[in-house]
C-alpha cells in the first residue's frame, strides 16, 4: 500500500466522518441537553436532502438548493420541537422512542406521497464534478469541498458552544439541567434553538451527500444508526466527543473496508478471505463501539463530570 493510496483513503475516511459529525452533533446536543432520544433525527436529514434536490433542480443552482434546505429544515425542526417534541421531554425514554419512531414512519410516508417512491438525483455543481490533482493525488473536487464544509461547520459549532452566551447555556444545560433552570435560564427557548441548529446541520449533511448518494425515502435510517454509534463512542452530550467519534468511525470504516480484506487474503485461502473480509469489515465500527463501552462506558469525552 503506497503513500498516495493511504492519503486518499484518509481523505475518504475524513469526508465520511465529517458528514457523520454533522448528524451526530445535533443528535448529541438534543440527547445530552434535553435527555431526549430522537429517532426522527434521520428524517430531518432526509427532508434536508429532498429540499436541496427540489430547489437545486428548480433553480439550477446547487448553492441556492443547499441554502434553502438549511433554512427550510431548521424551520421544520423548530416547528416540530414547539408543537410535539416539547411534550415528550418529561416522559421516559420508551415514550420518546415510540413517539419519534412514529414520526419517522410518518415522515417517510409523507415524503413518498409528495415526491414519489423513486430516488431523486441531486446534481453536482458543474464546477466541482471533475477531479483535482494535488501532487500525484487525483481526488474528486466535490469530496474536497465536503471536507472543507465539514471543517468550517465544526469550527463554527465549536465557537458557538465554547465562546458564546448561547453556548454557555447549552453547556450548562448539558452538565446540569436542573441547576441551569434554577439559575434562571430560559430553557425552553434554548431547546428550540438547539433543535433548529441540529436540524440545520442535518440539512447541510443532506445537501452535501445528496449528489454522492441518492435522495430516497428511508435514507435517514441507516445513517442514524451510525450517528448513534458516534455519540456513544464520543460521549453523550459532548460536541467534541461527537467530532472525535465521527472521524474515528469514518476512518475505521474506510480503512476496514480496504485493509481488512487485503490482509486476510495474505493469510487465508482466497475463497474464505473473500467471504470473511467484507463481513468483518462491516461490523468493525460496532466492535469499536463495544470496545469503548467496555473500557469507557461514558464515552471518550463525557459531557457530565
Amino acid at each position, binding site marked *: *500500500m*503506497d503513500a*498516495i*493510496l493511504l492519503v*486518499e*483513503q484518509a481523505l*475518504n475516511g475524513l*469526508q*465520511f466522518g465529517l458528514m457523520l459529525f454533522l448528524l451526530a452533533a445535533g443528535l448529541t446536543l438534543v440527547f445530552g441537553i434535553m435527555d431526549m432520544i430522537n429517532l426522527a433525527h434521520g428524517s430531518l436529514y432526509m427532508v434536508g436532502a429532498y429540499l436541496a434536490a427540489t430547489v437545486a433542480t428548480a433553480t439550477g443552482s446547487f448553492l441556492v438548493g443547499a441554502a434553502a434546505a438549511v433554512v427550510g429544515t431548521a424551520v421544520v425542526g423548530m416547528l416540530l420541537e414547539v408543537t410535539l417534541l416539547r411534550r415528550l421531554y418529561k416522559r421516559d425514554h420508551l415514550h420518546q422512542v415510540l413517539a419519534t419512531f412514529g414520526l419517522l414512519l410518518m415522515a417517510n410516508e409523507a415524503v*413518498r406521497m409528495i415526491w414519489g*417512491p*423513486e*430516488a431523486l*438525483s441531486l446534481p*453536482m455543481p458543474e464546477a466541482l*464534478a*471533475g*477531479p483535482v*490533482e494535488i501532487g500525484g493525488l*487525483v*481526488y*474528486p*473536487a*466535490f*469530496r474536497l469541498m465536503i471536507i472543507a464544509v465539514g471543517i468550517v461547520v465544526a469550527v463554527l459549532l465549536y465557537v458557538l458552544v465554547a465562546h458564546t452566551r448561547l453556548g454557555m447555556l447549552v453547556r450548562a444545560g448539558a452538565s446540569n439541567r436542573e441547576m441551569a433552570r434554577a439559575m434562571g435560564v430560559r430553557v425552553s427557548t434554548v431547546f428550540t434553538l438547539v433543535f433548529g441548529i441540529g436540524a440545520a446541520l442535518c440539512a447541510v449533511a443532506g445537501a452535501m451527500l445528496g449528489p*454522492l*448518494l*441518492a435522495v*430516497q*425515502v*428511508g435514507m435517514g435510517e441507516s445513517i442514524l444508526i451510525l450517528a448513534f454509534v458516534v455519540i456513544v463512542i464520543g460521549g453523550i452530550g459532548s460536541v467534541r466527543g461527537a467530532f472525535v467519534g465521527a472521524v474515528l468511525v469514518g476512518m475505521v470504516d*474506510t480503512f476496514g*473496508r*480496504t485493509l481488512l*480484506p487485503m490482509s486476510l487474503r495474505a493469510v487465508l485461502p*482466497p475463497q474464505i478471505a*473473500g467471504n470473511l*473480509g*467484507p*463481513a468483518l469489515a*462491516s461490523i468493525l465500527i460496532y466492535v469499536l463501539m463495544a470496545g469503548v463501552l467496555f473500557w469507557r462506558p461514558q464515552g471518550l469525552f463525557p459531557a457530565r463530570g
Partner: protein
Amino acid sequence: MIKKAVAAASMAMATVAVQAADQIRIGFMSTLSGPSAALGIDIRDAFNLVVKRNGGKLGGLPAEIIVVDDQMKPDTGKQATERLLKKDRVDVITGIVFSNVMLAVAPSIFENETFLVSANAGPTAYSGEGCNPFFFAASWQNDGQHEAAGHFSTTKGYKSVVLLAPNYPAGKDALTGFKRMYKGEVIDEIYTKLGQLDFAAELAQVRAAKPQAVYIFQPGGMGINFIKQWVAAGLNKQIPLIAPGFSADEDVIKAVGEPMVGMYNTAQWAHDLGNAENRKFVAEFQKEYGRLPTVYASQGYDTAQLIDAAVRDAKGKIEDRAVFGKALTTAKFNSVRGEFKLNVNHMPIQNYYLRQIWKDPSGRITNKLVSTVLTNHPDAYASACKMKPW
C-alpha cells in the same frame, strides 16, 4: 359443519380443476421504490404493454395483475409473497428483480406449487442440483452476461482486471461467470455491500491496483452511483470500464450521460436488434412511455409473452400443474432477443451480444449493437440438474 362445507367445496374445486380457468391471476412483485426502482418499473411497464395489447388478457384468459413492491428487501418480499399465495391465490408469480429477494421467497412459492416465472434473477441455486420444476427464467442464468463480458475482455486483450460486485448471491454468480471465460490475471476481487452508494474507498483501491481494465456488476442505483463517482475521480480517463448490460443501460445513461460514451457492455438483447418483434416492441414501448426500453424492459416483455403463449398452449387449463408446466417449458413465442429456448433446468439458451455506448446521429446517447459474443449459449450448471421434465 363449516369444515364439511369447506371440504366439499375444495373437492368440488379439485374436480373442476381440469377445466379451463376463467381467469389468470399474476402476482407481480418487483422493486418499485428506492434507487433501483427504475428496474422494476421497466419490467412492469413492458409486461403491461403485452397485456394491454391483448385487451387485458394472457393466452385468452382475462388477466388480473396484482402489483406489489418488495423494496429490494427480502423480508418485505417474504410477507408480500405470503399474501399473494394465501390471500390472492395467484397462479404465477413474476417480476422479482434481485436474487436475494428471490432466494428468500422462492421456497414458499415452490412449496405452494405455484409457478415462478422470473423476469430477471436466475440464481445459480436454482440452476444445477437445486433446479425446480416450478421455476422458469425468461431472462437469463445469473452468470450469462458476465461470461460474455469475460469472453470479450479476453479477446480484447486486457491482461489484468479488477472485479467489483455487491456481496450477495448474484454478485458472487457474476464474478464466477466472468472468471469462467476470462483468461487474463484477476488482480483483485472487491465485494461491496449490497445497496452501497459511496464507493470512494473502493475507487482508491482500484486506482492503486493499476489494472488494464475494470469489470463491475453494480445493478440499479448502485451502478449509477459507481459510474458517477468513477467519472468524478477522473478514472474514466485512465482505465477502461466494462459492465454487463444492466450497468450500462438507459437508466444509467440518463443519470450519467456524456462520460459513458465508448463504454462496452454485454447483454442478451439490444434495442437495435433487427428482428421484427423487437422493432415492434421498441416502437410501441417508446410510444407508450416516451423513453427507450432497457434490457429489463425486454425481459418483462418476453416474460409476458412466455406466459401468454403457455396459457394458450395449455388451453387455459392453468390449474392443472402438469399441463401448464409442460406448456411453459415448450411455449413458442417470438422473443425480442431473437432465438430463445429453455434448457433442461428452465434457464434460457440464447445469444449474448457486445454493445457499445455511442452518440447516435441525432445526438442521443445510447447503446449500439457491435457483435455477437456467445452464440446459443447454455449455462454451466444445466448438466447437474436431474429434474424430471413435466
